[in-house]
């Protein structure tokens, strides 16, 4: 019986791995297709797309599409802009939204339930519905910079960063997470005379690794994939991000090889950020002992 049971376990394990590998392949294939296609001339790419050769480095393989992509568009500028805008927004978003979530959960003040409800209601508003009012607003906002007081935020990094620092979803994520933290910890700290700032910095944030990683990944993806807003507010090439830059490759005759090379290049920061935070996420769970 024991032998049969062991066989069944082995079989179950094999089936489970087979299913997992299949699911993994479904997610990996588009990436493999993208990278392999970026190494092929457009003509071959289109021919290979109908069969399994599309996923293999076969035929006329070279880095020519990458060189051509850099020649067609200022790829480095676009990637730099996106990384800068995304990085700064994510950083400030984590600070502001976690502080807001902290205030909503731990600090008792009048009207917080109402304000939280209003904030959550913004989740149902698609960005497109507020894009034009926002455009009209940022086009006339003042800014005090090295040139003194100027009016209008168009063609700048700030116009791509500041409107997206605070958002309902990220605050909501922090609120939900903070609600599950042991209230006794906060109460004990208050009894010991800790200020709200100290509790936020020294108790709540060190316990918030998982939610910080989750919020950062979600915010990163949203910001890195921004298209409509930067299209509306950046008329100068020097401020454009990667997704607007993608349009440079869609000419009358699309050079698909260059498109794939560009996509491969702009995917690198996303993967790097995700892999980095994935480790931080696991480390955070291990060090804080927070259990799901």
């Amino acid at each position, binding site marked *: 019986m024991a032998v049969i049971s062991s066989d069944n376990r082995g079989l179950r394990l094999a089936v489970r791995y087979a299913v997992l590998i299949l699911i993994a392949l479904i997610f990996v294939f588009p990436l493999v297709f993208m990278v392999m296609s970026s190494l092929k001339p457009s003509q071959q790419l289109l021919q290979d*797309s109908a069969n399994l050769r599309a996923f293999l480095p076969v035929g006329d393989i070279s880095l020519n599409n990458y060189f051509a992509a850099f020649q067609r568009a200022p790829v480095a500028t676009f990637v730099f802009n996106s990384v800068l805008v995304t990085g700064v927004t994510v950083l400030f978003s984590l600070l502001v939204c976690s502080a807001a979530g902290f205030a909503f959960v731990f600090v008792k003040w009048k009207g917080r339930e109402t304000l939280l409800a209003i904030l959550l209601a913004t989740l149902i508003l698609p960005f497109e519905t507020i894009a*034009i009012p926002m*455009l009209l607003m940022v086009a006339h906002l003042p800014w005090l910079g090295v040139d003194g007081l100027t009016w209008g935020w168009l063609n700048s990094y700030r116009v791509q960063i500041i409107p997206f620092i605070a958002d309902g979803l990220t605050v909501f994520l922090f609120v939900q997470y903070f609600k599950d933290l042991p209230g006794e910890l906060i109460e004990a700290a208050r009894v010991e005379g800790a200020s709200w700032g100290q509790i936020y910095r020294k108790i709540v944030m060190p316990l918030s690794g998982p939610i910080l990683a989750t919020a950062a990944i979600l915010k990163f993806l949203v910001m890195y994939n921004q298209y409509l807003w930067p299209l509306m*507010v950046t*008329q100068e090439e020097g401020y454009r991000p990667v997704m607007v*830059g993608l*349009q440079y*490759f*869609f000419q009358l*005759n699309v050079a698909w090889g260059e498109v794939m090379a560009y996509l491969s290049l702009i995917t690198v920061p996303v993967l790097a950020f995700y892999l980095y935070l994935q480790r931080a996420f696991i480390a955070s769970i291990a060090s804080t002992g927070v259990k799901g």
Partner: protein
Amino acid sequence: MKVFTFAASAAILAWASAAQAQTTLTMWYHGAGNEVESKIINQIIADFNASQSEWKVELQSFPQAAYNDSVVAGALAGNLPDILDVDGPVMPNWAWAGYMQPLTIDESKIADFLPGTKGVWNGQLYSIGLWDAAVALVTRQSYLDELGLRTPTLEQPWTKDEFMAALDAAKASGKFEYAFDPGMAWTGEWYPYAFSPFLQSFGGDIVDRSTYKTAEGALNGDAAMAFGEWWQGLFTNGYAPATQDPADRDGGFAAGKYAFSWNGNWAALNTLQQFPDTVFLPAPDFGNGPKIGAASWQFGVSARSQHPEGAAAFIEFALQDQYLADFSNGIGLIPPTPTAAAMTEHYKPGGAMAGFFELSAQQALVRPVTPGYVVQAKVFEKALADIANGADVADTLDAAADEITADIEKNGGYGH
């Protein structure tokens, strides 16, 4: 030596002062990502800036696919440049919406320009193109000979019956996957640009051009119904594919899948290199004369410009034959004047693509000149796609006519 140094310093100062005195004109252009096009436009700007001391043009290039949205957003934010380029059929909408102002240039300089390159709205010139584009029925002389077909000419294009007989012959030969490639893989503006001339040749139109206040009768009258039936028949009778892979659109003719391809001058050079016996035939005459589309990108002055005279000076400067020829040689576009055409490699008399110039001159019909065109184009595209996929012709054209008419009414007649 001191005198020389003093003179040199004075000259440098004078030059620097002149440079500083130049008033900056901003310009938006749709050619980002197109290296050749960018090089030519930058050369024109450099030449203009160096040619006089009053104006200095500064360029911002946008990718074509994002250009119109960028201009609309810029207009909303009050941030339009002095000079902008605009797709010909979109110009009336931008003029009506207050994005553009009339273009004041010496009209004698554009007297011999192809009609499709002149953007006229409400009796005033708003934009002018440095090139035009045309569509032809692309095939090979060897195909015509093998199928025993008469080679149509501008003077004597194929009639509808001759065209259908040609498709029948190609289909019966069994040599091709489809007899005709209309280009169904290309969506968007391709539909009204390439296919509405068929409708117009049948005697219909996207909108009633006599008033521009309704599509009733134009898009769903007898002529339009006949067009719709013919259009649907292309697909139901197996002459053409109703849906098409983009790869087949790009390479299907070269691969021998189609006997005839409805395609533009921008793709002609590649085809000629593939098949030296390629011929570019005029559009068939479906009863009301052969028609093809016209009007490509054009330059105009934004309504926000504080210096329309400077903007107009730049546009007038760009109309030199040399630049028109440079664009043609660089990206294969049709030069707007015979003199510029004579300076080009492919459009000069006897050139491999000279026929396109004559097609533009003789068969071209601009798309409806109305601010409502931007909506009408989308409605027309959907109707034709639906009909190609089997929708009832009368119902579809009726619904499209109603939608277009309702949009015109909703917008107060668009100023007509």
